[in-house]
Protein backbone atom coordinates (compact mmCIF):
# COMPACT_ATOMS: atom_id res chain seq x y z
CA UNK A 1 0.00 0.00 0.00
CA UNK A 2 2.86 2.38 0.82
CA UNK A 3 4.38 1.74 -2.58
CA UNK A 4 1.10 2.56 -4.32
CA UNK A 5 1.19 5.95 -2.58
CA UNK A 6 4.66 6.41 -4.06
CA UNK A 7 3.72 4.97 -7.50
CA UNK A 8 5.18 8.01 -9.28
CA UNK A 9 8.55 7.08 -7.82
CA UNK A 10 8.17 3.64 -9.34
CA UNK A 11 7.23 5.03 -12.72
CA UNK A 12 10.15 7.39 -12.59
CA UNK A 13 12.44 4.48 -11.71
CA UNK A 14 11.22 2.83 -14.94
CA UNK A 15 12.06 5.93 -17.02
CA UNK A 16 15.42 6.19 -15.29
CA UNK A 17 16.15 2.50 -15.96
CA UNK A 18 15.25 2.94 -19.63
CA UNK A 19 17.80 5.74 -19.88
CA UNK A 20 20.42 3.50 -18.26
CA UNK A 21 19.52 0.73 -20.74
CA UNK A 22 20.09 3.16 -23.65
CA UNK A 23 23.37 4.37 -22.12
CA UNK A 24 24.55 0.76 -21.80
CA UNK A 25 23.52 0.10 -25.39
CA UNK A 26 25.52 3.04 -26.80
CA UNK A 27 28.55 2.56 -24.54
CA UNK A 28 29.00 -1.14 -25.30
CA UNK A 29 28.32 -0.57 -29.01
CA UNK A 30 31.20 1.95 -29.00
CA UNK A 31 33.47 -0.47 -27.11
CA UNK A 32 32.73 -3.32 -29.55
CA UNK A 33 33.17 -1.06 -32.59
CA UNK A 34 36.59 0.11 -31.44
CA UNK A 35 37.83 -3.24 -30.17
CA UNK A 36 40.09 -5.49 -32.19
CA UNK A 37 39.86 -8.39 -29.72
CA UNK A 38 36.06 -8.59 -29.35
CA UNK A 39 33.85 -10.06 -32.08
CA UNK A 40 30.93 -7.82 -33.09
CA UNK A 41 28.53 -10.78 -32.71
CA UNK A 42 29.16 -10.63 -28.95
CA UNK A 43 27.72 -7.12 -28.66
CA UNK A 44 24.09 -8.30 -28.41
CA UNK A 45 24.95 -10.72 -25.59
CA UNK A 46 26.96 -8.09 -23.69
CA UNK A 47 24.23 -5.47 -24.11
CA UNK A 48 21.54 -7.94 -22.99
CA UNK A 49 23.72 -8.91 -20.01
CA UNK A 50 24.32 -5.33 -18.79
CA UNK A 51 20.84 -3.97 -19.58
CA UNK A 52 18.94 -6.84 -17.95
CA UNK A 53 21.26 -6.66 -14.93
CA UNK A 54 20.40 -2.97 -14.50
CA UNK A 55 16.67 -3.76 -14.71
CA UNK A 56 17.02 -6.58 -12.16
CA UNK A 57 18.86 -4.33 -9.70
CA UNK A 58 16.19 -1.61 -10.01
CA UNK A 59 13.27 -4.06 -9.80
CA UNK A 60 14.65 -5.88 -6.76
CA UNK A 61 15.74 -2.69 -4.98
CA UNK A 62 13.42 -2.69 -1.97
CA UNK A 63 15.47 -0.31 0.24
CA UNK A 64 15.37 -2.98 2.96
CA UNK A 65 18.62 -1.63 4.46
CA UNK A 66 17.07 1.81 5.00
CA UNK A 67 13.82 0.35 6.37
CA UNK A 68 15.64 -1.90 8.86
CA UNK A 69 18.10 0.73 10.08
CA UNK A 70 15.33 3.35 10.35
CA UNK A 71 12.98 1.04 12.23
CA UNK A 72 15.68 0.00 14.73
CA UNK A 73 17.12 3.49 15.24
CA UNK A 74 13.65 5.07 15.67
CA UNK A 75 12.41 2.24 17.89
CA UNK A 76 9.52 1.31 15.54
CA UNK A 77 11.00 -2.19 15.50
CA UNK A 78 9.15 -2.82 18.76
CA UNK A 79 5.83 -2.93 16.87
CA UNK A 80 7.18 -5.64 14.55
CA UNK A 81 8.63 -7.68 17.41
CA UNK A 82 5.34 -7.92 19.32
CA UNK A 83 3.43 -9.10 16.25
CA UNK A 84 2.91 -12.84 15.68
CA UNK A 85 4.94 -12.68 12.44
CA UNK A 86 8.72 -12.63 13.04
CA UNK A 87 10.76 -9.53 12.19
CA UNK A 88 12.66 -11.34 9.42
CA UNK A 89 9.42 -12.64 7.86
CA UNK A 90 7.73 -9.24 8.09
CA UNK A 91 10.68 -7.64 6.27
CA UNK A 92 10.47 -10.27 3.52
CA UNK A 93 6.70 -9.71 3.17
CA UNK A 94 7.14 -5.92 2.91
CA UNK A 95 9.92 -6.37 0.32
CA UNK A 96 7.73 -8.69 -1.79
CA UNK A 97 5.03 -5.98 -1.86
CA UNK A 98 7.52 -3.36 -3.03
CA UNK A 99 9.02 -5.71 -5.59
CA UNK A 100 5.57 -6.66 -6.96
CA UNK A 101 4.77 -3.09 -7.97
CA UNK A 102 8.26 -2.54 -9.36
CA UNK A 103 7.90 -5.75 -11.34
CA UNK A 104 4.79 -4.35 -13.05
CA UNK A 105 6.01 -0.80 -13.57
CA UNK A 106 9.74 -1.31 -14.15
CA UNK A 107 10.58 -4.90 -15.09
CA UNK A 108 7.88 -5.58 -17.70
CA UNK A 109 8.21 -2.31 -19.72
CA UNK A 110 12.03 -2.30 -19.58
CA UNK A 111 12.34 -5.96 -20.56
CA UNK A 112 9.99 -5.32 -23.49
CA UNK A 113 12.27 -2.52 -24.76
CA UNK A 114 15.40 -4.66 -24.29
CA UNK A 115 13.88 -7.61 -26.15
CA UNK A 116 12.89 -5.26 -28.99
CA UNK A 117 16.49 -4.05 -29.25
CA UNK A 118 17.83 -7.62 -29.44
CA UNK A 119 17.86 -9.63 -32.70
CA UNK A 120 14.86 -11.88 -33.28
CA UNK A 121 15.36 -15.49 -32.15
CA UNK A 122 18.30 -14.74 -29.85
CA UNK A 123 16.46 -16.04 -26.78
CA UNK A 124 14.93 -19.50 -26.76
CA UNK A 125 11.86 -20.73 -24.83
CA UNK A 126 14.01 -22.95 -22.58
CA UNK A 127 16.15 -19.92 -21.67
CA UNK A 128 13.05 -17.95 -20.63
CA UNK A 129 11.94 -20.70 -18.23
CA UNK A 130 15.39 -21.01 -16.70
CA UNK A 131 15.59 -17.22 -16.35
CA UNK A 132 12.19 -17.12 -14.63
CA UNK A 133 13.27 -19.90 -12.25
CA UNK A 134 16.38 -18.01 -11.22
CA UNK A 135 14.60 -14.68 -10.58
CA UNK A 136 13.35 -15.63 -7.11
CA UNK A 137 16.90 -16.63 -6.12
CA UNK A 138 18.21 -13.33 -7.44
CA UNK A 139 15.61 -11.42 -5.39
CA UNK A 140 16.32 -13.38 -2.18
CA UNK A 141 20.09 -12.86 -2.43
CA UNK A 142 19.81 -9.09 -3.06
CA UNK A 143 17.18 -8.65 -0.34
CA UNK A 144 19.33 -10.42 2.25
CA UNK A 145 22.46 -8.50 1.25
CA UNK A 146 20.36 -5.33 1.75
CA UNK A 147 19.25 -6.57 5.17
CA UNK A 148 22.85 -7.33 6.19
CA UNK A 149 23.81 -3.84 4.99
CA UNK A 150 21.09 -2.39 7.23
CA UNK A 151 22.50 -4.29 10.21
CA UNK A 152 26.06 -3.16 9.46
CA UNK A 153 24.76 0.40 9.10
CA UNK A 154 23.23 0.25 12.60
CA UNK A 155 26.44 -1.08 14.15
CA UNK A 156 28.62 1.53 12.43
CA UNK A 157 26.09 4.40 12.56
CA UNK A 158 27.03 5.16 8.95
CA UNK A 159 23.90 4.45 6.93
CA UNK A 160 24.80 6.66 3.97
CA UNK A 161 28.37 5.44 3.53
CA UNK A 162 27.64 1.75 4.00
CA UNK A 163 24.71 1.93 1.59
CA UNK A 164 26.82 3.68 -1.06
CA UNK A 165 29.56 1.07 -0.72
CA UNK A 166 27.03 -1.77 -0.96
CA UNK A 167 25.57 -0.33 -4.17
CA UNK A 168 29.00 -0.17 -5.81
CA UNK A 169 30.05 -3.60 -4.59
CA UNK A 170 26.80 -5.18 -5.82
CA UNK A 171 26.95 -3.50 -9.23
CA UNK A 172 30.59 -4.55 -9.82
CA UNK A 173 30.54 -8.05 -8.29
CA UNK A 174 27.15 -9.03 -9.76
CA UNK A 175 28.32 -8.14 -13.27
CA UNK A 176 25.92 -5.23 -13.75
CA UNK A 177 28.73 -2.78 -14.52
CA UNK A 178 31.07 -5.04 -16.53
CA UNK A 179 29.98 -8.57 -17.52
CA UNK A 180 31.93 -11.09 -15.45
CA UNK A 181 33.03 -12.98 -18.59
CA UNK A 182 34.82 -9.86 -19.87
CA UNK A 183 37.03 -9.63 -16.77
CA UNK A 184 40.44 -11.32 -16.56
CA UNK A 185 39.82 -15.04 -15.89
CA UNK A 186 41.55 -15.14 -12.47
CA UNK A 187 39.31 -12.31 -11.26
CA UNK A 188 36.09 -13.70 -12.73
CA UNK A 189 36.82 -17.13 -11.17
CA UNK A 190 36.82 -15.53 -7.71
CA UNK A 191 33.72 -13.45 -8.45
CA UNK A 192 31.82 -16.51 -9.63
CA UNK A 193 32.18 -18.03 -6.17
CA UNK A 194 30.65 -15.05 -4.34
CA UNK A 195 26.92 -14.58 -3.63
CA UNK A 196 26.68 -11.41 -5.79
CA UNK A 197 26.92 -13.40 -9.05
CA UNK A 198 23.55 -14.97 -8.19
CA UNK A 199 21.85 -11.55 -8.47
CA UNK A 200 22.59 -10.75 -12.12
CA UNK A 201 25.14 -13.14 -13.66
CA UNK A 202 23.12 -16.34 -13.06
CA UNK A 203 19.71 -15.20 -14.42
CA UNK A 204 21.19 -13.29 -17.36
CA UNK A 205 23.55 -16.13 -18.35
CA UNK A 206 20.62 -18.57 -18.23
CA UNK A 207 18.63 -16.21 -20.48
CA UNK A 208 21.26 -15.42 -23.08
CA UNK A 209 23.33 -18.60 -23.37
CA UNK A 210 21.85 -21.05 -25.91
CA UNK A 211 24.67 -23.56 -25.92
CA UNK A 212 24.84 -24.19 -22.17
CA UNK A 213 25.00 -27.79 -21.00
CA UNK A 214 22.51 -29.23 -18.49
CA UNK A 215 25.36 -29.70 -16.02
CA UNK A 216 26.35 -26.03 -16.22
CA UNK A 217 22.73 -24.92 -15.72
CA UNK A 218 22.41 -27.09 -12.61
CA UNK A 219 25.69 -25.72 -11.29
CA UNK A 220 24.53 -22.11 -11.72
CA UNK A 221 21.12 -22.72 -10.13
CA UNK A 222 22.65 -24.86 -7.36
CA UNK A 223 25.16 -22.14 -6.50
CA UNK A 224 22.35 -19.57 -6.37
CA UNK A 225 20.27 -21.81 -4.10
CA UNK A 226 23.27 -22.38 -1.83
CA UNK A 227 23.80 -18.64 -1.32
CA UNK A 228 20.05 -18.06 -0.76
CA UNK A 229 20.05 -20.59 2.09
CA UNK A 230 23.31 -19.32 3.62
CA UNK A 231 22.24 -15.67 3.52
CA UNK A 232 18.77 -16.39 4.94
CA UNK A 233 20.30 -18.31 7.85
CA UNK A 234 22.90 -15.60 8.52
CA UNK A 235 20.36 -12.75 8.44
CA UNK A 236 17.82 -14.64 10.56
CA UNK A 237 20.44 -15.34 13.21
CA UNK A 238 21.88 -11.81 13.11
CA UNK A 239 18.39 -10.25 13.48
CA UNK A 240 17.50 -12.49 16.42
CA UNK A 241 20.79 -11.62 18.15
CA UNK A 242 20.35 -7.92 17.56
CA UNK A 243 16.75 -7.87 18.78
CA UNK A 244 17.64 -9.55 22.08
CA UNK A 245 20.24 -6.84 22.74
CA UNK A 246 18.32 -3.83 21.47
CA UNK A 247 17.62 -0.91 23.81
CA UNK A 248 15.03 1.70 22.90
CA UNK A 249 14.83 5.00 24.74
CA UNK A 250 11.39 6.19 25.74
CA UNK A 251 10.12 9.49 24.40
Amino acid at each position, binding site marked *: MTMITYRWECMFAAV*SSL*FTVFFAYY*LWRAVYRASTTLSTQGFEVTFAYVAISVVLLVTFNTSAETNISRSIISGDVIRDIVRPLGFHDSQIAAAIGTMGLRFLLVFIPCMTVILLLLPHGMIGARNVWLFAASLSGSFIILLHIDMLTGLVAIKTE*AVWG*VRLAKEYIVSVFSGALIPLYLLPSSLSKVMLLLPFQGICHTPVTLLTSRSMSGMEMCRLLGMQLFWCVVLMLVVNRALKRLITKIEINGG
Partner: protein
Amino acid sequence: MKRHVQLYLMFLSKHLKTLMVYRADFVIGIVCLLLSFALARFSIWAIFQRTQNIDGWIKSEIIFAYGYNLMVSGVAWLFFNQAWGLRDAVTSGGFIKYKIRPLNPLFHFFAESFDIRSIATIALGVLTLHAAAGSTGFHWTLPRTGELVLLTLMSAALFAGMIVLASAMAFWFTISNPLLGFLASIHGVAYFPLGIYGRMMGTLLSTLLPIAFVSFYPCSILMGKTPSVVPLYAMLGIIVVLWMVAVRLWLKGVQRYELPAT
Protein backbone atom coordinates in the same frame (compact mmCIF):
# COMPACT_ATOMS: atom_id res chain seq x y z
CA MET B 1 25.48 40.09 0.26
CA LYS B 2 27.76 40.61 3.28
CA ARG B 3 24.91 39.54 5.57
CA HIS B 4 24.37 36.36 3.55
CA VAL B 5 28.10 35.50 3.68
CA GLN B 6 28.09 35.99 7.46
CA LEU B 7 24.97 33.88 7.82
CA TYR B 8 26.44 31.16 5.60
CA LEU B 9 29.58 31.01 7.76
CA MET B 10 27.42 30.84 10.88
CA PHE B 11 25.39 27.95 9.44
CA LEU B 12 28.62 26.25 8.38
CA SER B 13 30.15 26.37 11.86
CA LYS B 14 26.88 25.05 13.33
CA HIS B 15 26.83 22.22 10.80
CA LEU B 16 30.47 21.29 11.51
CA LYS B 17 29.63 20.97 15.22
CA THR B 18 26.78 18.61 14.32
CA LEU B 19 29.17 16.54 12.21
CA MET B 20 31.50 16.10 15.18
CA VAL B 21 28.71 14.10 16.85
CA TYR B 22 28.62 11.70 13.90
CA ARG B 23 32.39 11.19 13.49
CA ALA B 24 32.06 7.45 12.76
CA ASP B 25 29.55 8.13 9.98
CA PHE B 26 31.95 10.65 8.46
CA VAL B 27 35.01 8.35 8.60
CA ILE B 28 33.15 5.33 7.22
CA GLY B 29 31.54 7.57 4.61
CA ILE B 30 35.00 8.62 3.40
CA VAL B 31 36.25 5.00 3.37
CA CYS B 32 33.20 3.98 1.32
CA LEU B 33 33.76 6.93 -1.00
CA LEU B 34 37.32 5.70 -1.62
CA LEU B 35 35.97 2.21 -2.26
CA SER B 36 33.43 3.52 -4.79
CA PHE B 37 36.24 5.51 -6.47
CA ALA B 38 38.43 2.38 -6.68
CA LEU B 39 35.55 0.39 -8.21
CA ALA B 40 34.81 3.11 -10.79
CA ARG B 41 38.50 3.19 -11.78
CA PHE B 42 38.43 -0.60 -11.94
CA SER B 43 35.51 -0.50 -14.40
CA ILE B 44 37.39 1.96 -16.67
CA TRP B 45 40.44 -0.31 -16.48
CA ALA B 46 38.32 -3.40 -17.32
CA ILE B 47 36.74 -1.67 -20.35
CA PHE B 48 40.16 -0.66 -21.68
CA GLN B 49 41.41 -4.22 -21.30
CA ARG B 50 39.14 -4.95 -24.28
CA THR B 51 39.55 -1.81 -26.39
CA GLN B 52 42.12 0.86 -27.21
CA ASN B 53 39.72 3.79 -27.44
CA ILE B 54 36.10 4.83 -27.12
CA ASP B 55 34.96 7.02 -30.00
CA GLY B 56 38.57 8.15 -30.45
CA TRP B 57 39.18 8.93 -26.76
CA ILE B 58 42.07 6.95 -25.28
CA LYS B 59 42.21 5.65 -21.71
CA SER B 60 44.06 8.65 -20.22
CA GLU B 61 41.56 11.05 -21.83
CA ILE B 62 38.63 9.15 -20.34
CA ILE B 63 40.38 9.17 -16.94
CA PHE B 64 41.02 12.93 -17.31
CA ALA B 65 37.29 13.45 -18.00
CA TYR B 66 36.42 11.18 -15.06
CA GLY B 67 38.64 13.28 -12.76
CA TYR B 68 37.02 16.47 -14.05
CA ASN B 69 33.60 14.92 -13.50
CA LEU B 70 34.50 14.13 -9.88
CA MET B 71 35.65 17.71 -9.26
CA VAL B 72 32.43 19.11 -10.72
CA SER B 73 30.13 16.80 -8.77
CA GLY B 74 32.18 17.44 -5.61
CA VAL B 75 31.76 21.22 -5.88
CA ALA B 76 28.03 20.99 -6.73
CA TRP B 77 27.10 18.51 -3.96
CA LEU B 78 29.30 20.36 -1.45
CA PHE B 79 26.81 23.23 -1.43
CA PHE B 80 23.59 21.58 -2.59
CA ASN B 81 23.53 18.13 -0.97
CA GLN B 82 20.64 19.29 1.21
CA ALA B 83 18.45 18.82 -1.92
CA TRP B 84 18.05 15.16 -0.91
CA GLY B 85 16.28 16.25 2.28
CA LEU B 86 13.73 18.61 0.70
CA ARG B 87 11.10 15.97 0.01
CA ASP B 88 11.10 14.75 3.62
CA ALA B 89 11.06 18.34 4.92
CA VAL B 90 8.06 19.11 2.69
CA THR B 91 6.04 15.97 3.49
CA SER B 92 6.79 16.03 7.23
CA GLY B 93 5.91 19.70 7.62
CA GLY B 94 9.42 20.61 8.77
CA PHE B 95 9.80 22.96 5.82
CA ILE B 96 7.48 25.54 7.41
CA LYS B 97 10.37 27.00 9.43
CA TYR B 98 12.05 28.16 6.21
CA LYS B 99 8.85 29.91 5.14
CA ILE B 100 8.29 31.94 8.28
CA ARG B 101 11.83 33.17 8.91
CA PRO B 102 13.01 36.55 7.51
CA LEU B 103 15.47 34.95 5.08
CA ASN B 104 15.33 33.84 1.46
CA PRO B 105 14.03 30.26 1.93
CA LEU B 106 16.16 28.88 -0.91
CA PHE B 107 19.34 30.33 0.61
CA HIS B 108 18.32 29.30 4.13
CA PHE B 109 17.50 25.71 3.15
CA PHE B 110 20.73 25.03 1.25
CA ALA B 111 22.97 26.99 3.65
CA GLU B 112 21.93 24.79 6.54
CA SER B 113 23.94 21.83 5.30
CA PHE B 114 27.41 21.56 3.84
CA ASP B 115 28.45 18.15 2.53
CA ILE B 116 31.99 18.01 3.86
CA ARG B 117 32.55 14.56 2.32
CA SER B 118 32.46 16.23 -1.08
CA ILE B 119 35.84 17.78 -0.28
CA ALA B 120 37.24 14.23 -0.51
CA THR B 121 35.50 13.83 -3.90
CA ILE B 122 37.09 17.06 -5.13
CA ALA B 123 40.54 15.95 -3.88
CA LEU B 124 40.16 12.57 -5.66
CA GLY B 125 39.11 14.43 -8.82
CA VAL B 126 42.16 16.72 -8.70
CA LEU B 127 44.54 13.77 -8.15
CA THR B 128 42.94 11.71 -10.95
CA LEU B 129 43.01 14.62 -13.39
CA HIS B 130 46.60 15.46 -12.47
CA ALA B 131 47.76 11.89 -13.02
CA ALA B 132 46.04 11.63 -16.41
CA ALA B 133 46.85 15.13 -17.72
CA GLY B 134 50.39 14.23 -18.85
CA SER B 135 49.10 11.90 -21.61
CA THR B 136 46.44 14.35 -22.85
CA GLY B 137 46.60 17.73 -24.56
CA PHE B 138 46.40 19.56 -21.22
CA HIS B 139 49.46 21.40 -19.83
CA TRP B 140 49.78 22.83 -16.34
CA THR B 141 50.59 26.41 -17.35
CA LEU B 142 49.02 29.30 -15.43
CA PRO B 143 46.51 30.30 -18.17
CA ARG B 144 45.45 26.64 -18.72
CA THR B 145 45.08 26.05 -14.97
CA GLY B 146 42.98 29.22 -14.74
CA GLU B 147 40.88 27.91 -17.64
CA LEU B 148 40.45 24.59 -15.80
CA VAL B 149 39.29 26.32 -12.60
CA LEU B 150 36.88 28.58 -14.49
CA LEU B 151 35.38 25.71 -16.48
CA THR B 152 35.06 23.55 -13.36
CA LEU B 153 33.14 26.32 -11.59
CA MET B 154 30.91 26.85 -14.64
CA SER B 155 30.20 23.11 -14.94
CA ALA B 156 29.48 22.93 -11.20
CA ALA B 157 27.10 25.93 -11.51
CA LEU B 158 25.29 24.15 -14.34
CA PHE B 159 25.04 20.87 -12.45
CA ALA B 160 23.96 22.67 -9.28
CA GLY B 161 21.21 24.43 -11.29
CA MET B 162 19.94 21.02 -12.38
CA ILE B 163 20.01 19.82 -8.75
CA VAL B 164 18.01 22.85 -7.54
CA LEU B 165 15.50 22.44 -10.39
CA ALA B 166 15.05 18.72 -9.66
CA SER B 167 14.65 19.34 -5.93
CA ALA B 168 11.94 21.96 -6.62
CA MET B 169 9.70 19.12 -7.84
CA ALA B 170 9.32 18.12 -4.16
CA PHE B 171 6.73 20.92 -3.79
CA TRP B 172 4.47 19.28 -6.38
CA PHE B 173 5.32 15.55 -6.58
CA THR B 174 7.14 12.94 -4.52
CA ILE B 175 9.53 12.23 -7.41
CA SER B 176 12.21 14.77 -6.48
CA ASN B 177 14.53 12.19 -4.91
CA PRO B 178 14.29 9.67 -7.78
CA LEU B 179 14.88 12.65 -10.10
CA LEU B 180 18.02 13.56 -8.13
CA GLY B 181 19.10 9.90 -8.24
CA PHE B 182 18.58 9.94 -11.99
CA LEU B 183 20.67 13.13 -12.29
CA ALA B 184 23.45 11.58 -10.20
CA SER B 185 23.43 8.40 -12.29
CA ILE B 186 23.51 10.14 -15.71
CA HIS B 187 26.18 12.48 -14.39
CA GLY B 188 28.11 9.34 -13.44
CA VAL B 189 28.46 8.37 -17.12
CA ALA B 190 28.86 11.92 -18.46
CA TYR B 191 32.62 11.48 -18.89
CA PHE B 192 32.24 9.31 -21.98
CA PRO B 193 32.46 11.07 -25.37
CA LEU B 194 29.14 12.37 -26.64
CA GLY B 195 29.68 10.82 -30.07
CA ILE B 196 28.94 7.31 -28.79
CA TYR B 197 25.31 8.16 -27.98
CA GLY B 198 24.17 8.77 -31.56
CA ARG B 199 22.57 11.93 -32.96
CA MET B 200 19.20 11.82 -31.13
CA MET B 201 20.58 11.05 -27.67
CA GLY B 202 23.50 13.46 -28.25
CA THR B 203 21.07 16.28 -29.05
CA LEU B 204 19.01 15.46 -25.96
CA LEU B 205 22.13 15.53 -23.75
CA SER B 206 23.13 18.93 -25.19
CA THR B 207 19.72 20.60 -24.95
CA LEU B 208 16.87 19.43 -22.71
CA LEU B 209 19.15 17.41 -20.41
CA PRO B 210 22.38 19.41 -20.83
CA ILE B 211 24.64 16.95 -19.01
CA ALA B 212 27.13 17.07 -21.93
CA PHE B 213 28.03 20.61 -20.83
CA VAL B 214 28.92 19.33 -17.38
CA SER B 215 31.84 17.24 -18.57
CA PHE B 216 32.15 16.40 -22.28
CA TYR B 217 32.33 19.90 -23.81
CA PRO B 218 34.58 21.45 -21.14
CA CYS B 219 36.95 18.46 -21.28
CA SER B 220 37.06 18.67 -25.09
CA ILE B 221 38.10 22.33 -24.75
CA LEU B 222 40.68 21.57 -22.03
CA MET B 223 42.27 18.69 -23.96
CA GLY B 224 42.36 20.74 -27.17
CA LYS B 225 39.93 18.42 -28.96
CA THR B 226 37.80 21.30 -30.17
CA PRO B 227 39.10 24.72 -31.27
CA SER B 228 35.59 26.20 -31.14
CA VAL B 229 34.46 28.34 -28.18
CA VAL B 230 30.78 28.02 -29.15
CA PRO B 231 30.15 25.36 -26.43
CA LEU B 232 31.47 27.84 -23.87
CA TYR B 233 28.92 30.52 -24.86
CA ALA B 234 26.17 27.91 -25.02
CA MET B 235 27.18 26.77 -21.53
CA LEU B 236 26.94 30.33 -20.18
CA GLY B 237 23.49 30.76 -21.72
CA ILE B 238 22.27 27.43 -20.30
CA ILE B 239 23.56 28.31 -16.80
CA VAL B 240 21.68 31.64 -16.79
CA VAL B 241 18.41 30.16 -18.11
CA LEU B 242 18.60 27.08 -15.89
CA TRP B 243 19.15 29.09 -12.70
CA MET B 244 16.39 31.56 -13.59
CA VAL B 245 13.90 28.72 -14.09
CA ALA B 246 15.15 26.76 -11.05
CA VAL B 247 14.96 29.72 -8.62
CA ARG B 248 11.56 30.84 -9.93
CA LEU B 249 10.11 27.33 -9.67
CA TRP B 250 11.60 26.79 -6.21
CA LEU B 251 10.20 30.06 -4.84
CA LYS B 252 6.81 29.36 -6.47
CA GLY B 253 6.82 26.02 -4.69
CA VAL B 254 7.57 27.76 -1.38
CA GLN B 255 4.66 30.16 -1.97
CA ARG B 256 2.13 27.35 -2.44
CA TYR B 257 3.53 25.27 0.42
CA GLU B 258 1.18 24.64 3.32
CA LEU B 259 1.59 22.52 6.43
CA PRO B 260 0.43 18.95 5.72
CA ALA B 261 -2.65 17.84 7.67
CA THR B 262 -1.87 15.62 10.65
